[in-house]
C-alpha cells in the first residue's frame, strides 16, 4: 500500500457537488454533505432543500449575523437565497416523498454492490438515528453517498452485501469515498474516477465485491 489517504472531506464534497445540474433541487444531509453548499460550481442554479422545511438556503451565516431561528438539517445557522420559501415538516417531507428532490447527499457506514446502504444503526445497537434518511433514500431521484473508503479497522465500506441494518435498498446512484467515485452496478462497483495518488490495485484490495474500472479512467480534479 502506498499509504495515500486520498481526498479530504471538502474534496469529496466538491466532487459530489460537481454532479449537480442546473435547476436541480438538492437535499444535503448532516456532516460532510452540508459542505457541498460551499462548493463553487459556476453559474449552476441549485435549490438546496433542508428536511425542516427550508427551500432555497444559501451558505452558513457569518458569525454575529445568524438568525437563531434558521437552521439546516445539521442545526447550523444558514442564510436564505432570494426566492426561498419555508414550509412545515409534513409539507417538507411531501416535497421529498413527492419525488421533487433531484439528488440527496448523505453519509453512510456501508454501501452494497446492489445499491443498498446503511447509515442509521450500528451492529447490535438498540434503536438508532434515522432522521429523514429513510424518506430521502426511498424517494429522491438520485442518492449520493459520501463515506470513508475503509473503517478505522481497515475494513471496506463498499461491500458485497450490507451486514448493518439498511436504510433503503437498491437506491444508491453514486458512492463518493476518499479513494474515488463509484457506481453500484448490481454485480459490483464501477470505479468512475480515481483520487490522486491511489492505484486501482490499492482500491481493489480495500473494496468488498467486484471492482470494474471505467474505460479511460480519469483522476478526480482537486483544487
Amino acid at each position: 500500500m502506498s499509504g495515500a489517504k486520498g481526498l479530504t472531506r471538502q474534496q469529496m464534497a466538491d466532487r459530489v457537488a460537481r454532479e449537480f445540474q442546473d435547476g436541480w433541487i438538492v437535499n444535503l444531509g448532516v456532516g460532510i454533505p452540508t459542505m457541498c453548499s460551499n462548493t463553487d460550481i459556476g453559474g449552476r442554479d441549485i435549490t438546496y432543500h433542508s428536511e425542516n422545511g427550508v427551500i432555497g438556503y444559501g451558505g452558513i451565516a457569518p458569525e454575529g449575523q445568524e438568525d437563531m431561528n434558521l437552521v439546516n438539517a445539521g442545526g447550523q445557522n444558514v442564510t436564505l437565497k432570494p426566492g426561498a420559501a419555508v414550509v412545515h415538516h409534513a409539507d417538507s417531507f411531501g416535497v421529498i416523498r413527492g419525488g421533487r428532490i433531484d439528488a440527496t447527499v448523505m453519509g453512510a457506514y456501508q454501501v452494497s454492490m446492489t445499491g443498498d446502504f446503511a447509515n442509521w444503526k450500528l451492529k447490535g445497537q438498540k434503536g438508532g438515528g434515522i432522521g429523514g434518511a429513510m424518506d430521502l433514500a426511498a424517494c429522491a431521484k438520485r442518492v449520493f453517498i459520501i463515506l470513508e473508503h475503509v473503517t478505522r479497522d481497515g475494513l471496506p465500506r463498499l461491500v458485497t452485501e450490507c451486514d448493518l441494518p439498511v436504510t433503503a435498498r437498491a437506491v444508491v446512484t453514486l458512492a463518493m469515498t476518499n479513494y474515488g467515485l463509484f457506481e453500484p452496478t448490481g454485480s459490483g462497483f464501477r470505479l468512475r474516477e480515481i483520487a490522486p495518488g491511489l492505484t486501482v490495485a490499492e482500491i481493489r484490495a480495500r473494496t468488498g465485491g467486484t471492482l470494474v474500472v471505467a474505460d479511460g479512467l480519469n483522476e478526480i480534479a482537486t483544487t
Partner: protein
Amino acid sequence: MQTNKLRGSFQDAVADIPDGSTIAFGGFAMPGTPFNLIRALLRQGAKRLTLVANTTGGARQPRMPDIGMLVENGQVAKVICAFTAATRPTDVLPFTKHYEAGDVAAELVPQGTLAERLRAAGAGIPAFYTPTGVGTELAEGRETRMINGREYLLEYALPLDYAFIRARTADAAGNLRYHRSQRNFNPVMATAARITIAEIDEPVLPPGGIDPDDVHTPGIYVHRLVQVPPEPDGLWPARRQEKRR
C-alpha cells in the same frame, strides 16, 4: 373567536396535565422548540408520559430542557421519535443511556413518517401508505401493499393529548406565525392535539392582528398562549457551541 387563551405563566399553562398523557414537543434543533413549556413540565411532575418529538435532545451545550431531562426526572414511559441516538455515534445522549438500560421505551419512526402520522391525526386520516422504510428492519412483520407496482408500508395516525409548540407571533384568537425554520413540526402537532399550548416570542396581538392570509396555524387549533419573557427568565434559542458534553 375564543379570546381568553392567554395564560400568565408556563406553570399555569401546564398545571392540569394528567399522568399518562401523550404530549408532543415541536422543534428541529433549537428553532421552534418549546423550551419554557418543557421546563414547566419538568417542574409540574406529570408521570408515565408518552412523548413525541423529532429528537430526545441535542448532544451539544448549552443543554436546554429536553426529553432526556424528563426521562432523568422519572416522568417518561415511552418516546416516539426519529432519533434514539445521535447522528454521530461518538455523541452519547443522556436519553440513549436510559433507553439502553431499559428505563424507558421508544418507538423509532422515520422523520417524514412521524410528520405525516401527526398530519394524518390532525386531518382525520386514520392510516396511509408510504414508501419510506420498505425493505428495512422497520418493516419487519409490518403490513405492506403493492400499489402500481411499488411496495408501500401501512402507517397509522398519531393523535396527541397535548402539543407544546413555539411561535414568533400570535393574536388573542390563537392564530400563529412562525419565523423561518421555527415552523418545522409545530403546525402539524397543533392539528393533531386535543389541547395545544403555545409559547410566543412576541407580545400577543389583538384578534385580527395577523392578516388572515398570513396565518400559519389557525387559532381553532390553539388553546393556551404564554408569552416568553426576556432572558434570563425565559429560554431562547442560543448559538450552538461546538463543545460537546
